[in-house]
């Protein structure tokens, strides 16, 4: 698998420009030189001599370029590696520090009595006073509100039937800190399928926000920690499953592309997307299809980081079998790409990229919008005032 390490893939580039034709950032602005020039071309040069390509910071790591590439070049990861090089010699902005360390912030806040309540209040006051904007965060956006109790703390109070069949839920930061109800829905679905859900409090943030902000050394620490845990669970034959498609892409593929060692790939084989796992149960005849019919029309925005995983669209298949009518939004990238769209100077680009999706959602010819990715859901909500849900929440409704 060592040939999938990003740095070894640059030489496969034929300069065909397929990545340019599919880059949503290039379509939105003309300042970005584009994946071909910044990734494989410049990405190989800068290792031999010090040379900075400033427009590198426009890449959102949405991975549209990687999916367009006929030659398997890990273009976006080459960009992220260069970004890390850049920050070895340049200071991070305050906003970058904040946006990269959502998990650290949440943990700090949780140490203060009523910290979540006050910080939610603080965030709305802060927004009104223009504090975010002054810090370099897009003042137009709401910062995601903290849940009163993080999922990991509330988890023990969830009553589950004991089972010999177990999975470990990798919650990811957004489900843990902001949308624990998605975690609850996951537990309900897994219980209905005869699985007991475990959590592992030693897991850290997958590192995606760190990678895209150039904190590669820190991301590496998270990666080492997380895969040690995943390998431990693998030894016990307990799969690690996550409903967050950016977390799963990081754990399954990006760690290995970024850091190259075989252990990352070995750990990755024990990681599953939630619906990928359910579909595998289905294929083994172990899926509980005793479902209440879902008479709903759903509009599905498929996150970029799910498209990159090459697992088909198991959520669509399963929800359709449960009687839902699932239509794909087919409107490209939503534009937010994790913390990208939260940066003040990227806000406009992010909204421009998302415009096609917003227009599609605003047609409102459905009961609910579904999307596996937390930040995509925030972006759709922000751009349309229609709040999407995770597909696992819909499936949970179908289990009585």
């Amino acid at each position: 698998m060592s040939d999938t390490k990003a740095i070894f893939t640059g030489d496969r580039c034929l300069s065909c420009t397929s990545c340019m034709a599919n880059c949503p950032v290039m379509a939105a602005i003309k300042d970005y030189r584009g994946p071909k020039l910044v990734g494989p071309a410049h990405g190989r040069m800068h290792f031999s001599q010090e040379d900075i390509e400033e427009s590198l910071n426009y890449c959102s790591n949405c991975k549209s370029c990687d999916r367009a590439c006929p030659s398997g070049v890990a273009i976006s990861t080459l960009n992220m590696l260069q970004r890390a090089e850049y920050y070895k010699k340049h200071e991070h902005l305050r906003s970058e520090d904040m946006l990269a360390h959502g998990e650290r912030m949440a943990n700090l806040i949780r140490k203060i009595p009523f910290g979540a309540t006050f910080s939610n209040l603080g965030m709305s006051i802060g927004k009104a006073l223009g504090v975010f904007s002054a810090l370099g965060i897009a003042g137009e956006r709401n910062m995601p509100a903290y849940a009163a109790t993080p999922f990991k703390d509330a988890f023990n109070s969830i009553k589950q039937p004991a089972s010999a069949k177990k999975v470990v839920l990798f919650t990811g930061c957004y489900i843990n800190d902001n949308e624990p109800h998605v975690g609850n829905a996951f537990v309900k679905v897994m219980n209905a399928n005869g699985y007991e859900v475990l959590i592992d409090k030693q897991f850290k943030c997958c590192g995606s926000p760190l990678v895209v902000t150039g904190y590669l050394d820190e991301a590496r620490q998270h990666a080492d920690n997380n895969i040690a845990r995943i390998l431990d669970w693998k030894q016990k034959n307990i799969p690690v499953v996550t409903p967050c498609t950016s977390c799963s892409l990081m754990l399954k593929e990006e760690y290995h592309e970024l850091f190259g060692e075989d252990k990352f790939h070995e750990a990755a084989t024990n990681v599953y997307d939630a619906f990928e796992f359910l579909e595998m149960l289905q294929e083994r005849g172990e899926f509980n299809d005793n479902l209440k019919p879902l008479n709903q029309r759903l509009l599905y925005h498929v996150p970029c980081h799910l498209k990159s995983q090459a697992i088909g669209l198991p959520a669509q298949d399963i929800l359709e079998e449960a009687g839902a009518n699932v239509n794909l939004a087919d409107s490209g990238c939503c534009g937010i790409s994790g913390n990208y769209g939260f940066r003040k100077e990227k806000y406009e680009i992010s909204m421009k990229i998302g415009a096609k999706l917003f227009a599609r959602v605003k047609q409102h010819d459905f009961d609910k919008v579904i999307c596996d990715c937390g930040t995509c859901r925030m972006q759709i909500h922000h751009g349309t005032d229609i709040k999407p849900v995770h597909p696992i929440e819909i499936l949970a409704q179908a289990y009585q």
Partner: protein
Amino acid sequence: MKTSDVIVIGGGLAGLMAASVAASRKQKVTVLTYGSGSLPLASGAIDFGSLENLPAHHPYKKIGLKACDEAAKFFYEVTEQANLPYVGKLSALLPIVTAVGTLKYSALVPESMNASNLANKKKFFIVGINGLKDFYASMLANNLKKYFPNKTFEIAKIDLHLLGGRDITCMDAAQLLTDNEQPFANELKALKASKDDAIIIPPILGVAGDFSRDVVQTQIRAQIIETTCLPPSPPGIRLQRAFMKYLQASGVRFFENSKVVRGITDGKKVTGVIVENAVREKIFPARKIILATGGFYSGGLTMRDFDQPREPIFDLPVFFPTGAENWSNMQLFSDKPQGFSTTGILTNDKLNPIDADGNVLFDNLHVVGANLGGCDKIFERSAGGIAIASAYKGATL
């Protein structure tokens, strides 16, 4: 995973066409692609090459003329639905102007590029755009003068304020022009071209359908003609988007980044294919498979060792010219084809792959597009025609 009626492997012109045709016949279609296909790199014009006096092993001999005609008709349906009108037919070729000012003749041509009326025009305005790379109006004019020595040429330079930021390609200009056509229309109006004139421009009138062209052309009396360009190429992108629109409207499932590594077979039937992702394999079951993975350039054919070309998914027998001396033609621009370019899979007239003795290997697997061997499609200029005609036939069998 539900069983598809048809799985199409490959998202280039042949794959998109095959998926569209199958979907139009109410089939449940899944497309698996690895890379976005080469349409964004293509001119948008479809060349058929010659349909006459062909050797027995030529793909057209297996496809048949009927499928060629029907494919062209279906192609028109797809493009019309996307407001991307095409003109031309197989029996008479139309000229288009290339980026360097030569004329190239094709069968199916985007209406925006149709240069067949140039001979009747009085004056040619050749329009360059400030800051646009790879488009040189004066070179284009000098070359085009060789075809039209008695015409008046005027070279104009238009400023669309593209400078600042990266070097601007035709695709960039086309994206920036989308929904913002008026400044360009105003500049063209200022040329004061009459209805008897032609305005020749790089292909920058948008990246989806002819919507931008409609906005501009309705305000200009002279005929606006787009040239070809270096990739990424807006006319090719428009064609790709026309097909994608058709597939989306037909409920075709389209999975990117999905590299098919092998087939699951049962005697002469292929029952499914296996996609390998970063960590595991996934089975996609199907009743019928269309192989549209392309030739050497797209990885549909590979060659690690000389004289041993491979088709990597089903390990189909691959035809290639024997003897190194027949492999290449040293005279690159001569009137002889390149031997290596004839490499590919040979089929029966149902486009099922056959071995050297003519035995069918899989009867529900159909090979289409650049996977097909037996002719040098680049030399013949038949790649586009073979792609859509074989795709049409493969999808209707």
